[in-house]
């Protein structure tokens, strides 16, 4: 028996680098954070190279049907690896500044990334479950890694609700197996296709899987853990988990909906549309009521989960294409936004809206970067957020869900108030107190990467449409 390892080479490299960092941290006489960062980044770069190598190998499953080898997986992996690289750089700087950097942090980020990339390519519900656990367990620890009380509280809530949602997901997998006799995505689709009446067990499976994924992508009404976990976690970790978890979980959700449950399209369509509508409204309205920037961005991420779901209501390639573009744009802008917050604040201090008053006076660069990310989150041209919103709305309208697009547009208008209020605070108010933002130039350069991406995708979205179009085919 020969085992083909190339399809999971990215995960192997990430886990290998993670183990190396972890052991280096305890075996070396003097732990050198810079060496850990270098090994971690090398692991991420190697994983990215290994993913790109898989681009031309379209069309197979590997490891006895456990993982898919397709272009969708390659694109999702590259987005996740980019997020991981930015998060590693930010975490290295901000956690060292706050005295909270330990070798476990980059190692856990690498393990979580391995879980995320595996989640994005899993072609079997059991693989999906394993990947989901790898990523969640690492993130629970990362959330509580700073030992501050608010951080531990966030980690506890995240852990309890995460474990709860995992049970839902697992029960859904069991039901899917009961209904079809297989856990492979292609196998489930095959067993469900051509039935005249829908088996009740398959519908139960669909509902339970939707709840499980709803928790992970923090779609309302399963978003309760999001603000607490995002607020409690060290801000660089928040940047990582807000972008990474969402991209990975949505990639897996798209696979489940558009492959395994594709024959049940008429049944899951209204469910996903309902979740999308509730998420955009709840996320946008509650974002206005927040006085803490991290909580506001957390509710905004709930709304953005809704926008991706709006794209996902369109079955087949147009929906996948729109959702994938939205995820790419969202990853860029949310990593950037939390990155700016991680430089303005220090530890748990300095994250309130008031602390951002007059930021322009203190650091025009940070204020400019934050304004760009906020404009993109609000969906105002010429940023990636605008193009992303247009593409999901177009996909939904073409699939006949014009009411959903209407709800989305109205919710964006409501949410824009929260973002623009923060911009007014930054530019038109005098600074309160005398807290200075982090002055170092390196993290600003790091944040210039997502900023450039946000602008570039907003002005020239054609750069990626070709690649995304080729990646928007899911067969397993």
């Amino acid at each position, binding site marked *: *028996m020969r085992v083909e390892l190339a399809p999971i080479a990215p995960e192997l490299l990430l886990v290998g680098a993670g183990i190396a960092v*972890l052991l280096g941290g305890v*075996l070396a006489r003097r732990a050198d954070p810079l060496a850990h960062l270098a090994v971690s980044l090398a692991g991420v770069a190697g994983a990215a190279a290994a993913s790109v190598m898989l681009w031309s190998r379209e069309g197979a499953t590997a490891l006895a049907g456990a993982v898919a080898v397709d272009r969708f997986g390659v694109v999702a992996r590259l987005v996740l690896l980019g997020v991981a690289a930015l998060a590693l750089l930010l975490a290295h700087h901000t956690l060292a500044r706050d005295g909270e950097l330990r070798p476990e942090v980059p190692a856990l980020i690498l393990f979580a990334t391995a879980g995320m990339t595996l989640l994005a390519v899993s072609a079997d519900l059991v693989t999906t479950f394993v990947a989901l656990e790898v990523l969640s367990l690492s993130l629970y620890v990362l959330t509580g890694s700073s030992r501050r009380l608010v951080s531990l509280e966030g980690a506890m809530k995240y852990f309890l609700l995460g474990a709860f949602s995992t049970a839902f997901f697992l029960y859904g997998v069991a039901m899917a197996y009961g209904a079809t006799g297989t856990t492979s995505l292609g196998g489930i689709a095959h067993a469900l296709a051509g039935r005249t009446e829908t088996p009740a067990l398959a519908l139960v499976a669909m509902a339970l899987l939707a709840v499980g994924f709803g928790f992970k992508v923090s779609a309302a009404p399963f978003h309760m853990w999001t603000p607490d976990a995002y607020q409690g976690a060290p801000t660089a970790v928040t940047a990582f988990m807000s972008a990474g978890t969402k991209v990975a979980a949505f990639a897996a959700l798209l696979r489940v909906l558009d492959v395994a449950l594709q024959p049940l399209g008429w049944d899951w369509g209204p469910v996903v549309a309902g979740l999308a509508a509730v998420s955009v409204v709840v996320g946008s309205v509650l974002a206005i009521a927040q006085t803490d920037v991290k909580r506001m961005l957390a509710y905004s991420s709930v709304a953005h989960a809704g926008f991706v779901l709006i794209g996902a209501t369109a079955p087949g390639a147009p929906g996948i294409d729109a959702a994938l573009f939205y995820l790419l744009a969202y990853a860029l802008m949310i990593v950037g936004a939390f990155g700016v917050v991680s430089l303005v604040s220090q530890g748990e201090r300095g994250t309130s809206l008031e602390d951002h008053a007059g930021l322009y006076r203190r650091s025009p660069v940070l204020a400019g970067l934050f304004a760009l990310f906020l404009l993109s989150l609000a969906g105002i041209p010429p940023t990636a957020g605008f193009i992303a919103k247009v593409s999901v709305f177009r996909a939904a309208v073409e699939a006949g869900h014009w009411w959903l697009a209407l709800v989305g547009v109205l919710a964006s208008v409501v949410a824009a108030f929260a973002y623009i209020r923060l911009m007014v605070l930054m530019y038109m108010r005098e600074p309160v107190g005398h807290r200075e933002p982090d002055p170092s130039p390196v993290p600003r350069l790091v944040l210039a990467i997502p900023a450039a991406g946000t602008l570039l995708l907003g002005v020239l979205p054609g750069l990626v449409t070709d690649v995304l179009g080729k990646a928007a085919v899911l067969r397993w």
Partner: protein
Amino acid sequence: METYYQSYGVVLAVLIAGVALVAVAFGAAALLAPRRPLPAKLATYECGMDPVGEGWSQTQIRYYIFGFLFVIFDVESVFLFPWARVFEGLGMTAVVEMAIFIGILALGLVYAWRKGVLRWV
């Protein structure tokens, strides 16, 4: 589909029979048994050690970490049994894969050891 539900019907029947058996046995015992309580009979362990202290007592947190390490290597041995059963048919691949699995767990033990978890202070 019908045979499918019939097989669940059997499960349901067994479940009901099981619950009924326990309920009848305990119910009959409660109704028929004579009851003469004595202090020795009401103790937690009627025969054996006398319990000391309260039920809510503090436990050394270190037991917890030792417990963790124990469970990890306990589960590892659970994985080794089915592997030993099929390993003849799989050959070298199985040996290498199990070596990697045990190797990663061993690295975890090295990590725990260097972190000072194994030292009892």
